[in-house]
């Protein structure tokens, strides 16, 4: 019996066009929080999917509690007390929390002594107790469609705990959470360690690893680079190992040299589906060569401002003026022609057509103009030519180049594709909404320098972000939104991040 509860020996896994895991060996001790760090596409998720039985390794062996794993299936993994919270939750939206948790192993009771029925009532109590024990704070009788993402994630955690998982794998658990929710989750993870569970955390956020993990394995392009003791390794060192080169956390930025006003927003009002004004009388200007950043806690109306400017949401009042022209009621296509590029918050819903190829997605904005389209006929050879140029220039990695189906690409590379497409339009005004959401540090750094480069070319840039660090790093002018109103607009150098944070909470006048 070795000291490890999980051991992977010389594991190799290949997919068409890519080696996802290349001779990886590592051991995980019982009762520790073990982090797997790496950029998007480094092979972390694949490695853990093997442990959870979703893939069979091409070479190498996996041992759990000293015993070699022979059959690879999620069911078998569950029998070995291994549980996994996936990046995309697998929940039934019209079921209650309890019903979701017990699905697949429903406890039964006999009604009238003979009729088997699923016993929801008693299970509700059991799950409430389990939730209390680990500090999860869920009400088991609520329906999934009525609870937020953070609580849905806790339902996934409860699912594992209900199945008596001892080894819990979290795949990028914080990608969808707000800072407060992240704190809460990390506390839950610590609580689970106190209860003797072994936790594997797949992430690319160094800060979280520093906060909770005991040991950390760093991967790059399918290979295991190093396993380090978190307490003894600096964040900078880990970042370098992960990216494979030196990284800087703050961006080099020359002072802004603003020109004429490019975008003027006057008393903008945007209403949501219920008729409630989520943006209520917002006014600001963005000049050429300026990054105007809107800071705020999620759901205060910042995304709606961007949508109204891009034409995705109708303005219920006020004006949007681009380069002297009133575009308040112009259709989306007209706005694009006049010079708006838009990097949306939700890249999979608004940014890409997932089942189209990378090449087609890169040309989504231009497919209808020459030389890509002449007399209504598409010219594929120009598609290929252009997309190859963009793939090369923006370093978009994928299995089969321009012919890759976008759905199969990693999140970071999907985002790179959108940014490549939009920046290449070379419009005088660009909107970035949450441009680095869910991305790793190397990719963030690259995107940040691209944003600054666009500014330096004299473009007006609207940046909407929930990451305060990102705003402090990039903004020339900061507008803080609270409850649909801009509480404060000021040059970035006159505000500290602490002050911005206070405005974000609506506490400072």
């Amino acid at each position, binding site marked *: 019996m070795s000291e490890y509860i999980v051991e992977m020996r010389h594991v190799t896994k290949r997919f068409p066009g890519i080696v996802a895991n290349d001779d990886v060996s590592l051991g995980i001790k019982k009762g520790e929080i073990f982090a797997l760090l790496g950029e998007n596409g480094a092979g972390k998720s694949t490695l853990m999917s093997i442990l959870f039985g979703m893939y069979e390794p091409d070479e190498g062996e996996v041992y759990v509690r000293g015993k070699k794993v022979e059959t690879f299936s999620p069911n078998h993994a*569950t029998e070995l007390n291994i549980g996994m919270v996936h990046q995309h939750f697998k929940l039934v939206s*019209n079921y209650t929390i309890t019903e979701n948790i017990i699905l697949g192993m429903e406890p039964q009771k006999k009604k009238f002594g003979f*009729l088997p029925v699923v016993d929801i009532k008693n299970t509700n109590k059991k799950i409430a107790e389990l939730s209390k024990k680990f500090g999860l704070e869920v009400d088991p009788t609520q329906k999934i469609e009525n609870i937020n993402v953070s609580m849905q994630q806790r339902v996934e955690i409860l699912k594992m705990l209900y199945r008596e998982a001892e080894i819990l794998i979290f795949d990028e658990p914080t990608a969808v959470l707000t800072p407060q929710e992240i704190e809460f989750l990390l506390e839950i993870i610590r609580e689970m360690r106190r209860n003797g569970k072994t936790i594997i955390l797949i992430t690319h956020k160094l800060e979280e690893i520093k906060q909770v993990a005991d040991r950390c394995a760093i991967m790059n392009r399918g290979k295991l680079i190093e396993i380090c003791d978190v307490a003894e390794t600096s964040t900078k060192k880990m970042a370098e190992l992960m990216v494979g080169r030196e990284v800087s956390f703050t961006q080099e930025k020359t002072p802004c040299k603003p020109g004429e006003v490019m975008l003027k927003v006057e008393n903008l009002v945007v209403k949501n589906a219920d008729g409630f004004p989520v943006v209520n009388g917002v006014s600001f200007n963005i000049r050429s060569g300026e990054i105007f950043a809107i800071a705020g806690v999620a759901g205060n109306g910042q995304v709606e401002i961007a949508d109204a400017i891009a034409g995705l949401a109708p303005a219920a009042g006020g004006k949007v003026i681009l380069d002297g022209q009133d575009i308040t009621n112009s259709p989306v296509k007209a706005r694009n022609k006049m010079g708006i590029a838009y990097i949306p918050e939700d890249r999979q819903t608004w940014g890409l057509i997932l089942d189209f190829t990378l090449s087609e997605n890169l040309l989504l904005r231009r497919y209808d103009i020459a030389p890509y389209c002449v007399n209504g006929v598409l010219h594929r050879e120009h598609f290929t030519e252009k997309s190859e140029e963009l793939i090369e220039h923006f370093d978009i990695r994928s299995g089969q180049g321009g012919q890759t189906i976008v759905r199969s690409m990693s999140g970071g590379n999907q985002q790179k594709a959108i940014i490549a497409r939009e920046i290449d339009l070379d419009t005088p005004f660009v909107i970035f909404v949450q441009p680095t959401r869910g991305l790793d540090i190397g990719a963030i750094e690259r995107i940040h320098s691209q944003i600054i480069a666009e500014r330096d070319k004299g473009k007006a840039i609207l940046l909407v972000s929930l990451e305060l660090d990102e705003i402090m790093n990039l903004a020339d002018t900061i507008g803080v939104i609270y409850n649909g109103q801009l509480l404060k607009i000021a040059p970035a150098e006159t505000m500290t991040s602490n002050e911005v944070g206070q405005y974000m909470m609506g506490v400072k006048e």
Partner: protein
Amino acid sequence: MNEIIVNGMSFSIPLFIIAVGGIYSERSGVTNLALEGFMGAGAFFGALFTALTAGVFASTSNLPMYLSLFVAMAGGALYAIIHAVLCIKFKANQVISGVVVNILAMALTDFLTSQINESVLGHSADKFILNVFPRLTVESLTGIPVLGGFFTNAYIFEFIIIAVAVVAWYVMYKTRYGMRLRACGDNPYAVDAAGCNVGRIQFAAVMVSGALSGLGGMCFAYSVFGHYSTSIYAGYGYLAIAALIFGNWKIPATLGACLLFGFARAAGYSLIQYLELPGTYSDLIMILPYVLTLLLLMIFSKNNRAPRALGEIYDKGKR
């Protein structure tokens, strides 16, 4: 008044059980336009059974009629396998599969009916003649105003169907299988992650759909037509689909929709008689349930919530 209730119920109840069959399939995530075909094929097997066993039972015995209901269920379930295999095993488009299954049922049963009449029963005909299904009057309850109509001259199969529907409701909402079935219609990936076999659950649901449709079809053959022939393909399967959509894929609400259709139809017939209109006008009244369908579609469609994964082809590898 009583006449409307008697006629309304004898139409609504078989329609209801066909719709329940549709709910089983659709709540599991498999679009089912094949109810018409399931219904006709199931009834064919039931009618064939009575035709082939005519000499075995005493001519006064009602037993073959009851047995034929079971045979129709088994036959419907068997025929439904075609839809299940196409949609689940071969991941075919569920709408196309449903339409094909309907057309196939009509052609196949027409052909077989004539052939079996000719070669086995020895006379040429394109139908199987059926006896009249026994009716029941509960004397002690007929005195009650309005409600008494439900216990006057009611076909016994109506009570059988209600019992089957109660069981169907219990299985769908109270048991393990039902819980997994409904989950498949919302998010099959969650069911798969919970270690259950999505394909198997859906396959069973489509077969149940066939069985219940077969039962409904057989009862229509006994009541509306009095024989089995291709005239059974009168669009009742499609009407059942409309009913289950108005019922928002829920069993009790669907019963309400079916009653509405049935009573609209029965009231129409009474109207013709009352106004002493010539027989050709009855065709006009026949369209009443369908006009009602159109109107209701306009009113209720926006509040409807179909199962989220309905019609989606389940592919394990997709994320």
